[in-house]
């Protein structure tokens, strides 16, 4: 058995790595860290898509029409999708 004592250290190290990972992730779940504004360093900063007043009005109208039953859910879905595509750009992932 003494011949295999050299295995203790690597296995202990691996165990410590796994345990500390679990611990850190568990703490993150309970109490998320405040890492501040997140953006990637080597990628251009991507601005949040701006919604104009006209866009806002369009959305309002769309929802009202759906609520009043003047359009069915398939039409609503189709119009909403094309609206999103029209203004869509990669979003900045916020914590």
């Amino acid at each position, binding site marked *: 058995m003494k*011949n295999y*004592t*050299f*295995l*203790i*250290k*690597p296995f202990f*190290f*691996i165990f*410590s*790595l*796994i345990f*500390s*990972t679990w*611990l*850190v*992730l568990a*703490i*993150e779940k*309970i*109490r998320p*860290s*405040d*890492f*501040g*504004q*997140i*953006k*990637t*360093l*080597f*990628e251009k900063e991507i601005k949040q898509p701006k919604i104009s007043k006209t866009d806002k009005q369009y959305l309002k109208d769309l929802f009202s029409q759906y609520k009043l039953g003047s359009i069915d859910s398939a039409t609503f879905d189709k119009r909403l999708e094309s609206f999103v595509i029209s203004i869509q750009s990669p979003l900045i992932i916020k*914590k």
Partner: protein
Amino acid sequence: MSKQFYFDKFEDRKPYSAITDNKYRTWMFQFFGIVTIVLGIAYLNWRWRYSLNPDALWFAIPLVLAETLSYVSTILVVFNFWSYKDPKKSPPVHYLSEIEDLQGRRDRPVKIDIFIATYNEDVELVRQSIIDAKKIIYPFSDVQIKIYVLDDGRRDGRDPAKENMKKVAEEEGVNYKIREHNKGYKAGNLKNALEHTTGDLFAILDADTRAFPSFLVNTTGYFRRDKVAWVQTPQWFYDTSEAEPLSSVINRNLKIENKNLIRLVDSVFGRIKINEDIFGNDPRLFYDVILRKRNFYNAAFCCGAGSIHRRDAIMNLAVKDFADGIKRLEEDLLNKHAASNIIEDQKKDLVLKQEIIPFKFHASEDIYTSIMLHADKENRWESIQHPDIECKMLSTQDLDSWVKQHQRYAAGSLDIAFKDNPVFKNGLTLGQKISYFTTIWSYFAPFWILIFLLSPVAFFFSLALPVQAYSFDFFKYFLPFQIMNTITIMLGCWGISTKRGDQYYISSFWFMLMALLTVLRGKEVKFNVTPKGKHFAKNTQHILPHIIIISLTLIGMLYNAILLYLGKHPTASGFAANAFWCIFNIVALSVMIRAAYWKPLETDSVDGN
């Protein structure tokens, strides 16, 4: 009655057996090694491109840079440990024709010289080495084996204040050689010996190197291959500190005398053993893995003591250097006195001024000479790292000596890197270049080690994290890479505990940094003779940086714990991650602090101090 030494009690220790090569383990190592390299690329790609915290780039960039540099070491380790390739053992040589082409000369039995280099070591300690050298056996009675004590301390009786080394040599019936200066340190001493001896093969032993009877029988056979320039045997330190129960260390240091208290301490801590090889002197990992695996690339270098050399190879190199030196001086002369008629007269002087130097005059003469021999395109000399232990030696017994010895190794290697870098050396193969580069690269480790040591401290006091998030993303890249890396190292060093080696790799950062600064400042790297004994003073200066880093770490942890308690800590998980990191740092750093204050269980009154 012969003089008593502290190491007398270790005389019965038996050397370890060399690791048996196993092709399946080698394949596993190669597989895991490649996986580690690939995972490392993925991890570092993610780290550089996506993980850096833009709000703390001052912290994030140095850390990721340190990780990248450390990753280079990982690649080099995989390359270096790729495979064992132990050369075939052959029976000992008898005639000269077995080791070289005689080219018409008459054949005769080989001549072997054994050099025992000494400077200021206790003469009775050297006597033991002489006695053991005299016990070396050889199966052929007509093979001449001569032993020479090469005394650079000139202890031939002229100075009554010094011990008389010459007398000891005469008493033991061996040859004694001195020179009137110390030019070239050990290399100069060997040069002097080679000028006065004629052995076809010569063995180098240090003052404390005690060869086993089989030393020549097991090594000279390699020289049947006519391109083998030298054979290095592992250096085995048989006097490393023994493990002792933690309870006895506590009782001794706290001066506990109460029997009940002693019993209590024994029952709690008695099973825990500490301080085994406290200075991390056991070089098994180096000789049995690092150097031995370099046989694969014909890149194992000479380490001095315990090596045996072909005179022809070393003299061939020296003569070439001599010719090159004269050529250079001639060119200088021509440039200076282009139109002068005094050139012819001065040319003659040049030959007289130039010396034939077999071993490079350098603090790391052994590795430097190895590089030059490997780079000899004409001869393509080969080196061999013999796997089995053929001699025993003494290790440094106090931190001050240990630091000086390792600082010399570091500064010597770095000096070669800056002045005559093997990477750019014509004649070396790619494998040899990478192998030598690995040795040099390892001495740059303090740069990234220092960052790894200071990173948790930086976090504790700035509360800034170098990464954007401790998300699953981080761990999905980090964890597989680290686990695979650990398994790869484990397979590469199979059978050898790397615990102490890892601790010293980290805790050596400071003196290695100092060695680097010495070389960068252009200071001459001096050949400090390693003391063979115990010198317990001057140790604290070496551990001040360690104490400072540990103190800052502990204060930082306390400060963060208070913030957590008050509910003002912005990242509790960051604290947990750094706390784990700190435990490893503190354990590694503390070994040197323990070593600084370590004393053997029994106080030895004899050892030449």
